[in-house]
Every structure is written in C-alpha cells, then in structure tokens.
C-alpha cells in the first residue's frame, strides 16, 4: 500500500504543480490610482453548479458597472468587486454571507440571486445593516413586513403581471379553455397561480398542472415529461396555454408542443423572456403563436457600447444574458447611493446603514427604466405590463396592458 501512496502523492503533486504554473486568465479587474479609499461591492449568487450561467450573467454586469464607475465617474473613492459563490444553495449562502459581512471594506451586496439562498442569508445581512439589491429574487415573502428593508429588488412582483396575462389571454385572444402549467419553482408556481385565478374569474375554464424543472435546465425531472404534457394539452382541447417558469424549460415545452401538433396560443412570463428562448427553440415550435409578458422594464438588455463592453468582459453575448441589465442597474444604484452618503474618513460601519436609507430615497433612471423602492424593498408599483410575440426568430413588442 505504501508504494501506492507515494505514487499518488507524486502524481497529485506534479499535477498540482503544473496547474499552478498554468498561465493566468482570470476575471479582469480594474485598479485605480492610490490615495483614494477603496470600497467593495459584493455579489452573491451561483457561480458554480447547475445554475452557474445565471450567476455569471450577473457578476460580469456588476463588474462592468464597477469598471465604468472607476473609469468614467470622478468618484472620490475606488470600487472593487468581491464575488460570493453560493451555488444558489441555501446551505452554502450563510457561509458566504458571514464572509461578506466581515469584509472590512464591503458596503453593499448585489444579490443574492436565488430566493432560497436569500432567505437563508438575509438574517446575516440585516444584522449587519448591509443593503442587498437583488436583480432576480422575486419571492413575495422576501419583501414583506419590514420597513426600510435592507433587502430590495429591481424586478417587479408577479401579481401585477399574472393578472394582465390572464386578461390578455381571455379577452384579447379569446381563449375559452386555458391550460396552466408551472415548473414547481417559487417564481413559476406563484405566477401561474395568479394567472389561473384571474382567468377563472374572467370566465375561462382552467386546467392547472405542474411539471418540475427538467434535468437539462438544472432540475432533476426528465425532459420527456413534456412529451406527455404536450400530448395531454392537445388531447384536452385547450385553445390557450400559460407557462409559469423559465426560458429553458419553456423551450423544451414548445418543442414538445410542436412535436405533438399543438396549434393554440402559448404565453409565458418574464422568466421565459430571453433571447436565449429563440436559440433554444426551433423555428417551427415558436411559430407566431407564442407570447411573452413582462412587468415594465424587465425585458431590457444591455445595448450599444454597454453590450460590446459586456461581451469583451464575459465572452457572452449581452442579448442572451438574462438579468445582466438588472444587475447593471442594481450596481449603479448602489454606487449612486454610496456617492450621496460618502464623506471623507467615513467608516464602513456608518456607510452601510446610510446606503440603505439613501437607496430608499433614490430615484434612478437605469437601463431597465425608472427605478425607486418602496419601504418593503419592492419596486414602486408598476401598472404597465409589456407584451411581446415571437415573430420569425425575433421577439417583437405587440403592445401593453
């Protein structure tokens, strides 16, 4: 056995040595002039594991906002990014949150990205009076109760959107018999429930069902479940279908609907509103009867110069990067708040609660629209819901509620 051991050590050691000397290609980080104080903006979200892509979309946008602030604004301080990888998991996020809380230069957090991880991490942040501005955590429970909540989010709640979607399907598209599917996620099930309830009250007959996220999209269910789902939808004679969930599973469902020969109207919410839906759906399956909705501003992407810079930083095309624009805005709101409350020699301990207060007062015109927060951390009510349609491989706006 000893022979084996020494061999293993030699093998592992030599491979480790080689790995260490491998040339570095890391995240680019900006460095500014000396003498100014440096503050850290944290990002918490999944950077490894099956949901890594969403987190990567966000963290590069945060990095971009910070780089731009360091480069273009004449700020009296330097900013840097610290990323905290929670893998989207509620068991890992407390460790990362306590790490962030103890970071001596950290003033605020973009994120956490996932609702479960947010719930597990939030006690740590709120005890340390750290503002957390999430680009993606939509769970209703996160934004209730507290006044001057340290948790805020730049995405809208789902009840407004669901009601508008139901109206669009039943009134505009005259759907009499609606099939409603959700993905069992906090977001998807919540949105689908609102749609089902509203559609019923508008007089349509509603068949609800739930198919969990498939293994292809980060869950564990089989993607062929959608073959069965589509068959049943066709057989039920429903003329309309609403899907509460994310683009990846929606793409799978559309593929299966096409294979099963479904011809009715299909609609989904902002979770599916991503240009990646187009690459993820064959042209035939998304033929002109697919509609998407989003509560004001949520459909925005980084465009123009920002998109170019984002691509250079991340290697991802900006128009595919879900939540990148939201993360960019969240970061800039934090920077704007920090700018307002910064005074020479102010301690981080004083900055943290001051930023929360300043964020609640801030009105910010970002990539995703005009943003300001309610006391509970939700965006100020938005009544407008935008609708769009998939037409010849493009997502085209078709009006609003």
């Amino acid at each position, binding site marked *: 056995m000893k022979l084996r051991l020494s*061999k293993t050590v030699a093998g592992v050691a030599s491979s480790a040595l080689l790995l260490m000397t491998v040339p570095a290609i890391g995240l680019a980080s900006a460095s500014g002039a000396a003498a100014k104080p440096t503050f850290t903006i944290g990002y918490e979200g999944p950077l490894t594991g099956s949901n890594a892509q969403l987190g990567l979309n966000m963290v590069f946008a945060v990095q971009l906002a910070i780089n731009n602030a360091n480069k273009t604004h004449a700020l009296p301080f330097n900013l840097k990014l610290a990323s905290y990888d929670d893998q989207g998991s509620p068991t890992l996020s407390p460790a990362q949150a306590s790490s962030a809380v103890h970071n001596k230069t950290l003033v605020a957090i973009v994120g956490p990205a996932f609702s479960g991880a947010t*719930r597990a991490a939030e006690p740590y942040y709120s005890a340390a009076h750290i503002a957390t501005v999430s680009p993606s955590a939509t769970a209703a429970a996160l934004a209730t109760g507290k006044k001057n909540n340290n948790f805020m989010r730049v995405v809208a709640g789902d009840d407004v959107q669901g009601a508008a979607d139901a109206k669009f399907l039943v009134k505009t598209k005259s759907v009499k018999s609606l099939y409603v599917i959700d993905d069992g996620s906090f977001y998807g099930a919540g949105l689908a429930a609102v749609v089902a309830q509203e559609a019923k009250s508008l007089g349509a007959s509603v068949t609800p069902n739930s198919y969990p996220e498939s293994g292809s999209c980060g869950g564990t269910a089989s993607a062929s479940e959608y073959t069965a789902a589509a068959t049943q939808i066709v057989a039920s004679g429903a003329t309309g279908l609403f899907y509460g969930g994310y683009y990846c599973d929606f793409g799978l469902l559309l593929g299966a609907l096409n294979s099963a020969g479904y011809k009715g109207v299909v609609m989904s919410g902002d979770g599916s509103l991503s240009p990646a839906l187009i690459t993820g759906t064959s042209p035939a399956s998304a033929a002109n009867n697919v509609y998407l909705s989003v509560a004001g501003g949520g459909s925005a992407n980084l465009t123009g110069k920002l998109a170019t810079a984002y691509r250079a930083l991340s290697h991802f095309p900006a128009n595919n990067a879900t939540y990148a624009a939201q993360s960019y805005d969240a970061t800039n709101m934090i920077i704007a708040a920090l700018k307002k409350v910064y005074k020479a020699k102010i301690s981080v301990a004083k900055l943290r609660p001051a930023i929360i207060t300043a964020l609640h007062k801030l009105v910010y015109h970002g990539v995703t629209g005009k943003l300001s927060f309610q006391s509970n951390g939700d965006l100020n009510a938005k009544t407008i819901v935008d609708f769009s349609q998939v037409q010849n491989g493009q997502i085209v706006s078709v009006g609003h509620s």
Partner: protein
Amino acid sequence: MSRWWRRPSVVRLASSVSVMAAVELVTGPPGSNAAPMAGVSGSFAEKVSFFGLFASPRWSVFLVYALVLYGVWSLWLHRGRQIRNAASVVLARPRNIAQRGTIRWSAAVVLVVVAALLPHFVSDPFWQTAMVEQIAVYVLLALGLNVVVGFAGLLDLGFVAFYAVGAYATAWVTGALPLPPLFGVHLNPFFAIPIAIALAMLAGVLLGTPTLRLRGDYLAIVTLGFGEIIFLFANNLNGITGGSAGTGQIPHFSIHLASIKYVWGLAPVPYYYLTLAFVVLFVIAFSLLEHSRIGRAWTAIREDEVAAESLGINPLKFKVMAFAIGAASAGFAGVVTAAQTNFVNPSVFTLYFSINILVLVIFGGMGSISGAVLGAIVIQTVSMYLIHTPPAGYQPQDLYIYLGALLIVMMIFRPSGLLPSKRRRREIGLAEAGEGHMDEVLTGDTP
C-alpha cells in the same frame, strides 16, 4: 505486437501529450455557441510567456510539460522499484508504530482536541460557518453512508432522503411547517434531535424492509427513486412542507433552565461544538458496531450473502439495521442544517447531493470510519477553498471539471481510497496478486 505504435515508450509519450492537451483545454479560455471552437483554438494558440523567456503559443509550453511528464514517468518505471524500496525502509518503523492500538487511540484523542480548539484558530467568518455547514455536516453524512455502503455493502443512491427527513422533522416539531406539530406544541430544536434521528431511522426501516431483498444495482436504482420521491413530495406538498418555497421560521437552539436563558444566534461556533460532539459520538458508536456481532454479520453479508445466510444470519434483518443506523447520523445532520440556517427548502435534497456524499465515502476509503471522515474533510475543504479564495487563473465555474479529473486520477492510482479499511485492503491485495477476484469486475488480459 511489434508494431511501433504499440511499443510502451510510444504509448507513454502519446499518453503524456494527451494528458497535457486535456489540461491545456481545461485551463484555456471558454468557447461559446456562436464560436464553439474558439475555446479549443484559444487553448492551444493563445500566446503566453514561454517560462518567462519569450511569448509563445500555449501548445509549446504544454509540449514541454508533456515531455517532463514523459521523463518522470519513464524514470519511475526504470527506477521506481528502488525508490519504493527505499521509501518502504524509511516508512516501515512509523508504520509499525501507527498500527498499535494505544497509539491509534491517542492519535484519535489528539485529533479531537485539535478539532475542538480549531474555532480559536480559524478567524475567517467564512470558514467558521463552512466548518459547520459544509464540512461537519458532510462528515456526519459520510459517516452514515459508510455504514450502509462500506460496512454492509449496499449501494444507496438516495441517502439524501434521510438528511431531508431530519431537516423537515426539525421544522415540523418546532412549528415551522404548515403541518402543525404534534399536540400543537412548538418545541426547541434540542428536542428535535431525538425525534429527527428516530424519524430518519424509521424512514430507513420503511424503505429497507420492502427493497432490501434486491441485490446490488437493483437496490441502487430503487434507493435513487426513493430519494427522488422524497424530493418531489417535499417540493409539491404545499400544505405540509411549504412546497418549493420551504419554510424560514425554524428557531435557533435555545436553553431555558430556570433563570438561565441562552439563545444561539447566527454565530456558528456553538453549532460547531454540538456537531463535533455528535461526530465523536457517532464515530465511537460506529466503530464499536463494526467490531461487534452486527458488524461481523455485515461483513459476512457483504462478502458472500449466500454463505452468510447458510450460517444462520438473516441478511434482511441486518441490512435493514444498516439502513436505519446509517440514517441516524444523516437525520442529525438535517437538524443541524435546519436549526443553523433557520431555513429548509427542497432545492438541497437532490440526487446530485447523494452522489456527492457517495464520492466522499469512496474517496476516503470505503468501510473505514477514519477514511469516510477524512474523505469528507479533504474534498469539502478543497471545494470550499476554491470557492472562497479562487487562485489566479482559475475560473470558478470550472470547479467540477477539476474535481472530475481528480476523481479519475485518484481512482487510477489509489482505487481503495485515501484510508482504506484493513479488510478492504487485504481483499484488494489478494485480487492484485491474482487470488480471488474483487466484486466481479472483469479485468481482462491487459498487459
């Protein structure tokens, strides 16, 4: 066999170059769908410093690495025996000492003392929390699974279910679930410990009784299904478990004794000591079990079930026992997770998680308690280190590429794990010497 490409030196050279090409690809830049070959070509063509001398494409640097690897490999083949012999002479004495019982026990005591003092040396809050949630909890899970897979030889791919039962049981008795607790009494998580352990063991018995008649891989798929079913129920029974949102109202541990009031907060250190105490408890209990009549029965069943049965051992009884006992430590791990994070939702309890725990056990050394503990500590510490302080040039999203490669390399060079049990070591030693065959894998006539 005289064809030139089959000569050992050529094969060795080709393998060295291939290994380095793989390393090159893994450490290179990422590609994208629009340009799927960009990552590949960049990995080979991108200019880097040639050992600090001049700029040169990556492939040239890696070719040098490949030649170094080839050289070391060849040297090992020719001179390896001498090096090994020298090493064995040097290591013989410490090895003999390490085999003595008293030394082993005192080493264990020293380790426990070190572990107990550890929070005083670890000041980084990330590590303080990770020591509980990401290391100690995994040690508990590995210990439990080791009883099932290592001692009794039952391949369980749904072990996470018992962890989930423990966590949800805690949420239930503390009144955090939509399902009201028994008699409407909201208990302190301390009282959840025995209840969660008992429920996890009960789940072990309930799952084991119908399924443990199956053998080997049939059992693996059925346990996997059981794990998935627990996950699906947790995710969908909104009125009982809170569904995919889970529940966030689990209280912290607290002590109310007459006038003493002490509520554990977010600080992880008390949880660390509690978990450490239970780890020690489980280690002692499991090693006593291993050498008891039950442990010997497990060994007998693992090695030859038919023979064991003919000796009057009831295999089903002992297998169910292994399931229940293994589930106990997983159930306790669930209590710690639920109470420390105040939060449970189903997203944790997936098949990936079960597979990860199995990896810890086999990596550490199946059937060996110290191996399971060490495997959990090593893999989790390395993962957490890479997540917390990513070294320069390492892209965090590539963690699992490296872990995957590590698992393959490890299994090639040390298939019995880091610290294999004595019995396993002997079984493998016999197989290598050509006497008897291990677990029926066809070895073929490779040179």
